[in-house]
């Protein structure tokens, strides 16, 4: 259970990171480019989500083992996002829409274009 929660948090984090990459940003917003400052904000938010995923890992395992599990989940999450971007960009858009709600809540002033 904690594992799934951690994976969802990690996917959320990587979604934020992926959006800051231009080619993937265009997938969502057409031709526009992301302002530099917003990219930084999104990256920070992404890192935050990734860091948050540490908590369920450490909760379910011990600190040391939890860290290893976290890193393993980072590998898996990055792989899933990559596969998604390659073969199922629709899922990526869907994921971003869901994550978008959270983003608006947490980073209300963010300019995306």
């Amino acid at each position, binding site marked *: 259970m904690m*594992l799934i929660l951690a994976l969802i948090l990690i996917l959320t984090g*990587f979604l934020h*990171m*992926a959006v800051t*990459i*231009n*080619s*993937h940003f265009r997938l969502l917003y057409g031709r526009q480019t992301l302002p530099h400052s917003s990219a930084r904000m999104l990256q920070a938010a992404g890192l935050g989500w990734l860091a948050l995923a540490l908590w369920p890992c450490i909760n379910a*395992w*011990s*600190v*040391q*083992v939890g860290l*290893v*599990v976290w*890193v*393993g*989940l*980072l*590998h*898996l999450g*990055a*792989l899933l*996002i*990559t*596969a998604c*971007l*390659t073969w199922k960009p629709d899922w990526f858009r869907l994921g971003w829409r869901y994550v978008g709600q959270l983003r608006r809540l947490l980073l209300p002033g963010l300019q995306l274009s």
Partner: protein
Amino acid sequence: MKETLRQSMTWLHTWSSLIVIWLLFAVFVTGTLSFFRTEITHWMQPEGHGASQPQQAATTAIQRLQQLAPDASRWDIQLPGERSRLTGLSWSNPGEVMERRRGPMLSIDPATGETLDLRETAGGNFLYRFHFELYGIPRELGRILVGIASMLMLVALVSGVIMHRKIFTDFFSFRPGKKTASWIDAHVIGGVLALPFHLMITFSGLILLASTLLFWNGGDQRNGPPPAGPQTASHGPNTTPERPSSRGEPRDEQVERGARPQWNNERPDHEGARSEHPHPLREKNPSARHTHITPTGDQPAVDINAMIRQAQTLWDAPVNAITVEQPNQTDARWQLSTGSREGLTSGRNGRQLIFDNQGQLLENRAEPEATGALAATYSVLRVLHEARFADTTVRWLLFVSGILGSLMVATGAILWVVKRSRQQLGQLGYELVSTLNLAAIAGLLIAIAGYFWANRLLPAVLENRESWEIRVFFGIWLLSLLHALFQHQRQGWVLQLSVGAALFGLIPLLDPLTSRTGLWFALQQGDWIRLLFDLVCLLMALVLLVAVVYLRKVSAPRRPTPEPANVRARPIQEVKPQEITP
């Protein structure tokens, strides 16, 4: 300046890895499979597949030991758990020369206590051994070769990171259908996404093999700084401090750890259940034999299940092994241990509870603290590499990372060929690399599948059965190499990958046909070890099949075509005969 650095790193990356890349692929694949060593062995011993999983396997095991060896000086019980579905029993008799156990002497059905006549198999252990000391050559040489390969792998990893231009921009990018670019992407995905794993596994593997490489350090010091030290000092009166190795860990740990002291003198797993080295310390300690002289006759009833409950509540983890010193005597000691661990710095031994003959808790041994930063570091590396901390979930994560690593190595090897296809076609070096690529990548996968087939198809009772399995493995690999010598272009890949896909894909059919029980029964019983093995084989077949379809669809990468790949693909492959006929 920056460009020159990058260029020199590219050169280093290319050539340092190329000379060992085929070995690296074999090490990575067999090493990845070794995360599931005991699970693979379970699959390879279908005689044990019908065993059911009762709540009270310990009671049955003790009853059985009472019948088999009531006068023994020590019992060892490996309980079924997440990773194994049988109970393993072993014991030593008083006065007997201490022998190192190589796994349990007897496997019984956990529910009925019936002895199971398991077939001999090289099992997952062969793959495990192969991944760090190869096979058929002196063990030291094998270790040195693998050590050198890991060193070069580390060089390749670091130089690969430096030479990569846009590590963050390309982080999630995969561009299929673009020939060289796709191969580069795949190589980078395999490498970058799991980079922490690769660095960890390569570096720790190197450290584990370091003593064979630093040959001037005065002999084999694989034990390293003694993280297990503090524990051995605190044993009770009847335990033998010189044998911390068999102090009840899960089965696979015991196999490996027992082998350490006389590492250089014996063959690994191919010579039966035990080997005959008397333990030097034990020999010098005659008093250890005289403690057996007072059997008490009436044995107080010990409630093993109460002890297990207590241990499980205390640890929040299952009990994996029970060791009884002086069973049936007043000073008997019951030692319960678990393979699950809290930390990585604590060396190889897990948590233990010691009970006396009345079922009273005497001692609660936590995981030992590391003796220093060095010992802690060594322990972390070792425990990480050997996945001793890992429950099944974590093992799957490691497995995925290992697959990514294998992918990185394989695509790296193919990339070398793809990049040079235009200029160097027909040159000796190019042809050699192409041949070895095919034999090392596709050939190894076929050989592994063939190894599993051999396990089920060879007669269950056969002289030197394990060596036959291994012979089949290498025989198939050799065949693949011979084939690759003559046909290492695309057709060769298509053929070998198809064979691999067929062998892997049919394993879920082979399994129920050659096992005592079918898959439906396994599902009812919840034998997920076996079901997941079949599932992974099926996935493997699927991946190979996709590769075959892909290879048949795109044009051969070495054809110098300015047009997009798929335009030229069909004329070359299928339409050509028709073009000639009219």
